[in-house]
Structure formats: C-alpha cells, structure tokens
C-alpha cells in the first residue's frame, strides 16, 4: 500500500514567484524574509521523500466555467500544462508542464465514487496557480507526477465546509489504500481571510487579522471541531469576500486528521493577505 509521506497545507500567493526572482530596485523589501520562510517550508516536503503529489487547489475561472461547473474534480491525464495567459500577464508566472499519475487518479475516482463523493474528472486539464504556486514554493524542480484535485471555492452554490473536511478525510483514506509502494504527499492550498475586487482588498494586512489568528490556531492544532463550529458558508463572507478559499485548508485539516497538531507551522504577515504554512508527518517526523 502507499504511504502518506506528508500532508501539507499552504496559502498560494501568486506574487511569490515575481517577488522571489526580482532583483535590485524591483525586489520588494519583504522578499528576503519570504524566501527564507519558503525555503524552510520546502525542506519539510523534501525530508518526506515523496514519489507522488496529490495537489488540492481550485481553478480561478480559467478552464472551469459557469456553464459546466464541477464541485470537486480529479485530473486524470498523463500531463498537465500549467498557468494561463492572465497569470503570466498579472503575476509573471511561467508556463509549466507537469506529469500526471493516472493510476492514483483512477484509484481516487473509483474509490471516491464508491464512498459517496460524485467526483467529476478531466482528461485534459490545464492547471492554474492554485497548483503551480505550491509547486514553485515546495518542489520547484517540478519533477514529481501529480494528481490534481480541484474544489469549487469560487462560484456559489458551493459545498459546505463540512463537505470539504469529509473529502479531506476520504482522500487520506483513499491514498492509504492505493495498492502501490509509493510515498504520496497530499498538498492543498487555499487562503486565510482574503478580499478580491471589494473595498477591503490590498490593505496593509489581510482583511481580517483576527480571523487569520484563529484560523492558524485551528489548523496548527488540528482543531476541526472548533473550526467547523464557527465556519459556515455564510460566515466566510465576513472576513473577506474571497475567504471561501479557506475551505481548502479545512479539507487539508480533514486529510491531516482530527485533533492532529501540525509538525511544522509558520506564517508571514504580508500586505493584502497573510501567508501560512503547515506540514504533518503521519509516519512521524523524518530524521
């Protein structure tokens, strides 16, 4: 059976690539601290020695559209081209190409359908920065095959937070039941409080530092119960109009396990939104 080598939850900040590669007067003052934190975070994945990456993210109206919108979708293809024109334009993200792990994708689809998750699938999926940002931060070599899992955190009606947690638990079980002697890291990215296209965007901090403080505590301690007691589809409007991306963190809390504290937790207060990074080692912290 496969081994879950690591469970990793992170924000995905599309500005990191440009900030970390810029030089001279173009380099923002926070870039060096940000790079140092990312490199430490990257080491937590490297130490887990993964063979395959399950990548949980959310398409930002790139390929998936309102005429045919899946709630949860698994990418099953030999390759995934990555990043879209408007991500090159706005964030300077590079075009990328990642290999797929079709056998694990097929396993997740079959097992997920049988477990009551009516997962959609795509055999030709171009992935966006919700998946490529963590590749850039955690595995810039981009040398491991992936299985992308997309969630709808963007287009109402969305599944409720509980469903994200349930799917995270199911993904963990399904990976563990994959009959392959491979080491799998389950990586998912979302947001803390975030406002996009509203009056609270691009402030000195994230739009709701108090929500961010609580969210980091819930994730770091694995406190799924407290998180679910407070977070609803309606409540997520309050910290910022794009905060439904926090549900991808909740999915990862489900994958990490109820009550399981993260083995690594870090955050970085930036303008516009707070960064946060978490790693769990189900086998125990690697030497």
């Amino acid at each position, binding site marked *: 059976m496969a081994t879950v080598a690591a469970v990793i939850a992170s924000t995905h900040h599309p500005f990191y690539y440009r900030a970390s590669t810029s030089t001279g007067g173009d380099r923002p003052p926070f870039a060096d601290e940000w790079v140092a934190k990312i490199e430490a975070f990257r080491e937590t994945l490297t130490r887990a020695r993964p063979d395959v990456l399950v990548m949980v993210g959310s398409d*930002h*109206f*790139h390929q998936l*559209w*309102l*005429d*045919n919108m899946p709630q949860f979708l698994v990418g099953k293809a030999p390759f995934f081209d990555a990043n*879209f*024109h*408007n991500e090159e*334009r*706005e964030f300077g993200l590079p075009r990328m190409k990642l290999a797929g792990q079709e056998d694990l994708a097929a396993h997740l689809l079959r097992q997920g359908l049988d477990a009551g998750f009516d997962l959609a699938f795509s055999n030709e999926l171009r992935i966006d920065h919700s998946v490529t940002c963590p590749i850039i931060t955690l595995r810039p070599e981009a040398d491991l095959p992936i299985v992308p899992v997309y969630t709808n955190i*963007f*287009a*109402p*009606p969305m599944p409720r937070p509980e469903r994200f947690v349930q799917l995270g638990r199911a993904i963990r079980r399904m990976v563990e039941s994959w009959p392959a002697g491979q080491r799998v890291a389950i990586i998912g990215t979302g947001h803390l409080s975030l*406002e*996009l*296209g*509203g*009056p*609270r*965007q*691009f*402030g000195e901090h994230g739009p709701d530092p108090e929500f961010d403080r609580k969210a980091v505590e819930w994730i770091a301690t694995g406190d799924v119960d407290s998180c679910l007691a407070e977070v609803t589809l309606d409540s997520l*409007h*309050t910290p910022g*109009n*794009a905060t439904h991306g926090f549900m991808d963190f909740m999915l990862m809390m489900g994958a990490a396990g109820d009550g399981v504290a993260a083995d690594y937790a870090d955050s970085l207060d930036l*303008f516009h939104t707070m960064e946060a990074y978490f790693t769990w080692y189900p086998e125990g912290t690697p030497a």
Partner: protein
Amino acid sequence: MSKYLLDKFLFTVDRDPDLVERYRADPVGTVDWWEREMANRLLGCTPAEDSTWLAFTEAERAALRGHDHVALFGLGAHPFLTLTLFIAMFERDHGPLEYQRAYARALDHRTLPYPDIST
C-alpha cells in the same frame, strides 16, 4: 438580472488579449459587438449550437459600456472577474498597487453583506 452574462463577458474578454485592448479602447463598441455576436456563444460547442436567449439588462449594459467597476460590483458581477480584467486594462496607467488601492477606495461605501454573486 443576468449576472451569468455579465460574468461571461468579463471571462471571455479577459482571456483574449486582443479583446482586452479592444474593450479598453472602445468600451461601447466592444460591448455592443459582444452582446450581438458573442453573448449566445455556447463555449465548448460550435456556433451552430448557439443559445438563443441571453441579453444584458440596460443597467448591466451601461455598467460595462462605462467601465464602471463600482456598478458591476453592485450588480453582483463576480468580483474576481471584474478585478482581473480591470487590472489588465488599467494597472498600466498607475504606479505599483495604486490602481488596486484606488479600485478599493471607490467601493468604500459598500458594507456587508455585499451583493449576491450567485448565478
């Protein structure tokens, strides 16, 4: 209300560099052409399968013709789509983050709950 069609305009223009420039330079002409020629295009199908019923309300048409992101927010257009397209059109005329912050200030009068973006 045709929030879906507003979003469809923002989505289809944003992904086409030529259309972004055309909308920036000629908003009235682009909106009129798009509503006439593109609004009913079923993405992923051939033109023979076009829809037959999609049209803007007058308020929606005016908001798009006016590059009026405040009005679009009020009409329930998806804020991510509006922001992304408007950054593509107008960030170039401003210093770093100036446009994004002015965009937010123009919406300062909006309080929770924001307009419903459900389609």
